[in-house]
Each structure stands twice: as structure tokens, then as C-alpha cells.
């Protein structure tokens, strides 16, 4: 009897027939689904372009150097990366079962959260300090590093500036070959401040030396190094970052101690790009020593400590973050960002702070590193879990006395296995759901309305070995623990939202919208297939104008977000659609999170293009959305069903449509949106 027969309990001949029937069915299904897919004509060019970029590395910089030398007297550093160097892998991955080298398996080496550190060497290092790869030559002293926007330890271009026995070198490493290839160019004059920037798509690198801007395309069919004089440029302009804004690609640059500048470039193909005017000084003050943009193009600036008793400040647009000790006393700080991460480093002491730029704001985390400059370039994937069950760790509140504080925000950890609860007075509690060696990752998260740091429930999406589920984590005074049933999702969970009364969770997956009665023995409701495919964003009960309506669910789809009226039923499948709202309908949403307010304000929203937001407190209407938008803008409003906290007297407030709030002076408004 085969294993399969054991598994199914069939008699041998029945099992054989069943097996053959399943095989036929599988072959037919897989064959049909495979035929559904057509290769896009653009794929060939995409691959060609990537091949060229990879192939360019071993020799093209040499040619670029020759071309440049003819113009600018550059010398080519011979011998470097003449053959694609396999970087020394300090920690070899565990062998597979066969111990045979498996093509492409380099990408499978377990990489915990990885950052690139700049010391005397250029290395990839985990957040715990483990060296993953060492890339630079022994006698080189790497002084700065930059990477393309979506760089990971496996793919993408990294550029660096290094001092070598032959002079200052600008070099690149390309991760496209499963290892790293690279090339370098000796420079007659070193880049100001060793500043170098990589085009967001990895198509070119740029730096400023003296008052000259240099652009080096990284594709073999394009002319080599190009050079442009910068008119009216401040002395010592240091390139920091290349931002690919849709309508205004720009280089961000700073002058140490002298503020920040943007350098507008031509719109169009990167290989035709050139500066279109003199550097423009940004209105961030002269004390700024370093600046960068977050992925959503918020400007981050750093103002160092100016003397005894003063503190260094990180400012993300208008929101200042006072730096924790010992960075608050630093006089020189290095800031870098890539993807959702950034780092701030005191180059003198090596003290570092990991920054996470989220829609809900900026969070900081001290980084335990050796004395070095740090540039966090990307996150690597987490390793695989040994046990599928969540290993829920202890919460780590910032102040035990504040455990009873209501949770008013939730952030997914950058490692994908922790989340942080936010509470008033800057209190936080970080829950480790999976251990560091786990490869299970968290996705969507939602906290039950009314939860506190020591009494509450969090619904989390968990993905492990291709299986996605929704799990529940209880917050207790003793710590956090998994509770209730694991609900297996169909495909990817795209959103989770709690009912305002905390009795049910709605989540969206490939089957549509589903609801789950929460608690021990809770069962999943049937998929509500009437709901359009989309990601559930919010679930609010409402005091609607239609008496039959008892709630609203916002779904985010490719076409934008739509607001659906729902009815509450008696059984576990709690929601039943009552129809999509007319764009001009008015809905009155009760704000459930304002128990402390003297007067319970209500928020009125008008779905559809003419967005309007208003509310009343003490009978006075006020407020309004600053920008028109689609129903998707209602996410912030709908989140008010549990997440917007309006405290005290409300006079007026302006709201942007990305979940961020700009409060007028003296208006006490807090705004938190669950992710």
C-alpha cells in the first residue's frame, strides 16, 4: 500500500483509480491554466536590458573610462572586476539535501533583515551584526554607498566611493547574477563629500566633483561618462539621492552645515537627462547637514546638536522627531534611506538609529552595530519557521505603568514578524509573533476596537510556506498569546477590519469578503461572494439615513475604493450587502473612539468625487477636506469608526487624503489609521 493509499483510506484498487483520476484532472487543469498565460512582447526587451546591464559590469567601465579619459584625462583602474568576482560569502548557506549546487539557489540562502554597512569595507550585514557578504577589495576604504530604490541583497545596483592605492574610485556592484559583479573608475577629483547617487531604477549613477555634475549611465549601448558645469552651485555640494518624481526628476544634495538643494533634471529617458538649471535651495534652514527623501517623497532633514544642552532633531516634512541619546548630542550625522527604511549614524561613534517611514509616521529603533557608518539598503526575506504555530513573545511596553492605555495605532515591524502597538503619550508595546529564525511573515493587521496595551485582541494575517491564514493574538497583563481558531484564507489576505463592536472580523481574500466570529471556537463565515473583489479597509456601523442600513464596509479595488452598505444578520456571516452607495449619498458615521470627548462629534462624508468632510462638536459644524478625491479618501474617515480620536473642542481641521492630518494651530486632533 502506498503512502497515498494510507492517506486517503481507500482500498488499493480504489486508491489507484482515484489517484489516476486526480492525475488526469490535474494535468487537464494545469495545462489549461498554462495556456491562459501569454508572454508579453515587452518581456524580450526587458530581459535584453537586464542582460546588458549585467554584461556591462566586467568590462564596460573600462571602456567608459577609456572614453572618459580621452575627454577628461581619466585613468582606468586595470584589473578590477575584469572577471565577475564571486564575492566571498562569509557565511555559506546550509547545503541542500543533495548537497549538489542548485542553480539559482543563492537567492534561497536565509537572509534575515539585512543592511549594508559602510566601514573600511563594504559589507552586507544583518541587523544582528552577522556578516553576510564582503564585497570590496582588501586595500580599499569605502567611504560612502548608495543603492537604487528597490535594491535588495539579491538584486539591484549599489554604487560606492572608495579610497584605493590608485586614487579615489567610484564603483558599482550589480546583484543580478545571484552574486555580485562590478566595475570601477578612478577619478581625477573625488566627489564632494564622497557623495554618490544611483538612479532609482539603477540605470545610472551621479555625483558632483567641484562644480561639475557627472552622470554615468550603466547600459552598454549608451555613451559613457558625461559632465555638466553647475551654474550658481554652492561650494561643496554633496549629492545625496536621486529622486525619480514623475514630473520633476531631481537630485537631492546638501552642503554640510549649509542646508539642502534640489537639482532639477530633464524629464525623459534617463540617458538623455541633464540638469535644467541651477540648484534650488530648499526651505529647510541652513543648519541642515543631511537630507533625504522617503519613498513617498517626504523630505527628511537632520539638524544636529549645536552645542551643550541642544538636541539633534530629525524632521520628516513638518513632523520633528527628537533623537534619543546618544545621537541627540552628535554634531555630525549621516542620513540614508532606501525603500521603507532609513538610518541615521554618528560617524564618529558608530551609534545608529534604524528609521522606518510608514504612512502613519516615522518610527525609530536603536541599531546595535559596530562603530561604522551605516546605510540600510533593503530588507531580506525571513527564514522559514519550524513550527507553524505563532510563537507569541512578551510585549515590551515602554512604560509598564501605561499598560492600560488604549491602543490607537498599529505598525507592522520592518522584519515582518513583529508588530508595535501605539498608545497615547508615546507609549508603545512591541509583540514578537514569530522568532527571528522563522520565515513566516505577517501581513495585514487590525486591532479590536477598545483594546488597551494589556487587554485586547489583534487579528493578523500570517503567511507560511505558501499558506495564508488569519490568526488572533490576545493582549494580556502577562503578555501576548495566540487565541481562537486559525482561519485559513484562500490566497492572499488583502485587508482586515474589525466590526465596531469587536465581535467579528471581516477580511478579504481571493474568495471575496469573509467574516469571522471571534473567540474560542469561533468559526469563519461563508465567503460573501456578492462582494466585489477588493481589499476590505474599514467596517463601521453607521447611523445612516437608510433605516435598513446598519453598517458600511469600504473596499479598495483597482478602480478605487467603494463604500458598501451592509446589514447585520443573526448568524455568523454577519454582513449582507445592501447595495453600493450612490456617489451622492450622504452617510453619517458615528465616531466610536471619542468617549473622552465632551460632545460626541459625528462625521459626515459624501462619497464620490466632490469629497466633503464636516463634523460637529457642541453643535458647531466645521472642518472640511482640503483636497477633492475619490471615495478612497474615505478611508481616513471610515477609520474614524475606531481610529480617529477627536479630543475636546473641535473647531476646524484640514485633512489630506493620504491619511495624514494637518491640524491648524491649537486644534487638538490626533489621527491614527490602522494599517
Amino acid at each position, binding site marked *: 500500500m*502506498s*503512502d*497515498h493509499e494510507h*492517506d486517503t483510506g481507500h482500498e488499493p484498487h480504489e486508491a489507484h483509480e482515484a489517484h489516476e483520476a486526480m492525475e488526469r484532472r*490535474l*494535468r*487537464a*487543469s*494545469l495545462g*489549461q491554466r*498554462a*495556456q*491562459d498565460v*501569454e*508572454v*508579453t512582447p515587452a*518581456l524580450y526587451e*526587458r*530581459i*535584453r536590458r*537586464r*542582460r*546588458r546591464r*549585467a554584461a556591462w559590469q566586467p568590462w*564596460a567601465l573600462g*571602456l*567608459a573610462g577609456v572614453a572618459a579619459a580621452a575627454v577628461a584625462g581619466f585613468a582606468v583602474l586595470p584589473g578590477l572586476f575584469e572577471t*565577475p568576482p564571486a564575492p566571498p560569502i562569509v557565511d555559506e548557506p546550509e547545503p541542500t*539535501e*543533495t548537497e*549538489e549546487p*542548485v*542553480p*539559482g*539557489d543563492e*537567492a*534561497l540562502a536565509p537572509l534575515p533583515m539585512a543592511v549594508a554597512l559602510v566601514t573600511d569595507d563594504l559589507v552586507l550585514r544583518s541587523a544582528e551584526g552577522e556578516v553576510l557578504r564582503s564585497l570590496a577589495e582588501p586595500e580599499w576604504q569605502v567611504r560612502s554607498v548608495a543603492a537604487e530604490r528597490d535594491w*535588495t541583497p*539579491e*538584486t539591484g545596483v549599489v554604487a560606492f566611493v572608495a579610497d584605493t592605492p590608485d586614487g579615489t574610485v567610484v564603483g558599482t556592484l550589480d546583484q*543580478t*547574477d545571484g552574486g555580485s559583479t562590478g566595475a570601477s573608475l578612478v577619478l581625477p577629483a573625488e566627489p564632494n563629500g564622497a557623495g554618490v547617487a544611483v538612479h532609482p531604477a539603477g540605470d545610472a549613477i551621479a555625483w558632483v566633483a567641484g562644480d561639475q555634475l557627472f552622470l554615468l549611465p550603466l547600459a*552598454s*549601448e549608451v*555613451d*559613457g561618462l558625461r559632465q555638466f558645469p553647475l551654474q550658481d552651485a554652492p561650494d561643496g555640494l554633496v549629492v545625496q539621492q536621486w529622486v525619480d518624481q514623475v514630473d520633476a526628476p531631481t537630485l537631492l544634495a546638501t552642503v554640510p552645515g549649509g542646508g539642502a538643494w534640489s537639482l532639477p533634471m530633464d524629464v525623459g529617458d534617463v540617458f538623455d537627462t541633464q540638469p535644467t538649471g541651477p540648484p534650488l535651495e530648499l526651505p529647510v534652514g541652513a543648519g541642515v547637514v543631511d537630507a533625504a527623501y522617503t519613498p513617498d517623497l517626504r523630505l527628511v532633514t537632520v539638524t544636529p546638536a549645536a552645542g551643550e544642552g541642544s538636541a539633534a532633531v530629525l524632521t520628516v516634512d513638518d513632523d520633528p522627531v527628537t533623537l534619543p541619546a546618544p545621537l541627540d548630542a552628535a554634531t555630525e550625522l549621516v542620513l540614508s534611506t532606501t525603500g521603507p527604511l532609513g538610518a541615521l549614524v554618528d560617524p564618529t561613534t558608530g551609534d545608529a538609529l534604524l528609521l522606518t517611514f510608514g504612512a502613519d509616521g516615522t518610527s525609530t529603533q536603536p541599531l546595535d552595530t559596530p562603530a561604522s557608518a551605516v546605510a540600510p539598503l533593503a*530588507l531580506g*526575506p*525571513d527564514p*522559514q519557521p519550524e513550527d507553524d504555530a505563532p510563537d507569541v513573545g512578551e510585549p515590551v511596553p515602554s512604560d509598564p505603568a501605561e499598560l492600560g492605555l488604549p491602543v490607537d495605532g498599529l505598525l507592522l515591524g520592518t522584519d*515582518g514578524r513583529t508588530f508595535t502597538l501605539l498608545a497615547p503619550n508615546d507609549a508603545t508595546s512591541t509583540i514578537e509573533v514569530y522568532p527571528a529564525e522563522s*520565515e513566516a*511573515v505577517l501581513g495585514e493587521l487590525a486591532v479590536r476596537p477598545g483594546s488597551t496595551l494589556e487587554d485586547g485582541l489583534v487579528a493578523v494575517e500570517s*503567511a507560511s*510556506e*505558501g499558506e495564508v491564514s488569519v490568526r488572533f493574538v490576545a493582549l494580556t497583563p502577562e503578555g501576548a498569546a495566540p487565541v481562537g481558531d486559525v482561519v*485559513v484564507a*484562500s*490566497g492572499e489576505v488583502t485587508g482586515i477590519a474589525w466590526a465596531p463592536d469587536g465581535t467579528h472580523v471581516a477580511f478579504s481574500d*481571493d474568495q471575496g469578503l469573509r467574516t469571522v466570529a471571534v473567540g474560542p471556537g469561533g468559526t469563519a463565515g461563508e465567503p460573501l461572494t456578492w462582494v466585489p473583489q477588493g481589499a476590505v479597509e474599514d467596517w463601521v456601523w453607521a447611523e445612516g439615513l437608510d433605516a435598513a442600513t446598519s453598517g458600511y464596509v469600504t473596499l479598495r479595488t483597482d478602480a478605487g475604493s467603494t463604500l458598501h452598505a451592509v446589514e447585520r444578520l443573526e448568524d455568523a456571516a454577519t454582513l449582507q450587502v445592501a447595495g453600493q452607495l450612490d456617489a451622492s449619498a450622504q452617510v453619517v458615521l458615528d465616531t466610536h473612539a471619542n468617549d473622552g470627548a465632551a460632545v460626541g462629534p459625528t462625521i459626515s462624508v459624501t462619497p464620490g468625487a466632490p469629497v466633503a468632510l464636516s463634523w460637529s462638536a457642541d453643535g458647531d459644524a466645521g472642518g472640511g477636506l482640503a483636497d477633492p478625491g475619490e471615495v478612497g479618501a474615505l478611508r481616513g474617515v471610515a477609520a474614524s469608526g475606531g481610529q480617529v480620536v477627536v479630543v475636546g473642542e473641535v473647531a476646524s481641521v484640514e485633512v489630506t487624503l493620504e491619511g495624514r492630518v494637518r491640524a491648524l494651530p491649537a486644534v487638538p486632533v490626533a489621527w491614527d489609521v490602522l494599517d
Partner: protein
Amino acid sequence: MLHVVADVDERGFAAVYADQVDGLVRLAYLLTSDAGRAEDVVADAFAKVWPRWQRGEVDDLGAYLRTTVVNTARSRLRRRYLERRHAATLDGDGRGVLQHDEAAAEHDATWQAVQQLPQRQREVVVLRFWEDLDVATTAEVLGVSQGTVKSQTSKAMARLEQLLEGAR
């Protein structure tokens, strides 16, 4: 002036591409359920494998590409929680990916069940019953023992029966 890759190389690549790309993209799709991601996986695979092919480090290019696609697809799935953050800008027609027949796929209960298999079981099923590989070759592609392939196949079939029974 820099030069493009030599013509002879381009002709060689074009021939390999024409011969391999359809099968590789379809394999990647069956492993990832996402047409856009499938093309990304195949692009990654070509970029990784081609230099090694040129350096004479690869004996069987087709097999090497296939194995790289399987491994890269698995790696991509492991990173899906990060990629999802960018899905709105990367997926769909906006990046030129042709849409597959989603309606038909949704009504294919067997395909829906295959997508619920753990990734390793899914790989085994796709390689054995779509690529039509024998146990030994499947084990070689996945870098596991033949016993693992057999046990994973058995578990996958049992799980599929269970899922399809539950779907009735």
C-alpha cells in the same frame, strides 16, 4: 562610445529566448498564480543564467533555466509581504502584462485547490503533472531526495482530494 553586446551573442540569446520563454513563463505562473510576477521571475532567471551559459558553466541550459525559475519563484513568494506593498504600481495592465483568463481560472476548482497547497507540494505537482518530469528529475530540480518527491506528491494528492471534496 560603448557597444552593445556582440551580434552573435544577441542571435544566440534570441534563439534561446524563443525556444524557452513560453514554457518558463507558464511554469512560473503555475507556481505563483500571478502573470506579472511570472514574467519577473523569468527575467530574473535569464539574467542569472545567461552569463553562466556564456562562460561555459552550464551544460543543459533548458534544465538550468527551469530550476532557476522554480527557485526564484519560491524566493519571490517568500518576499511577498514586501512586494505586496508595491503591488498597486506593479501589477496589471499598467506594466504591460497581458491578463490571463481570470474568469476561467476562478471556476477551475482543481486550480483553486492547487493554489492552496504548500509551496513545496505545489512545485512537485506542477513539475510532475505539467512538466511531466519523472521522480528523479523532479528531485534534481528541487534539490531534494527522490523520497521527498514521493512523499510530497502523496501528501499533495491527498490534500487535493480533501480540498476538492470540500468544494463540492
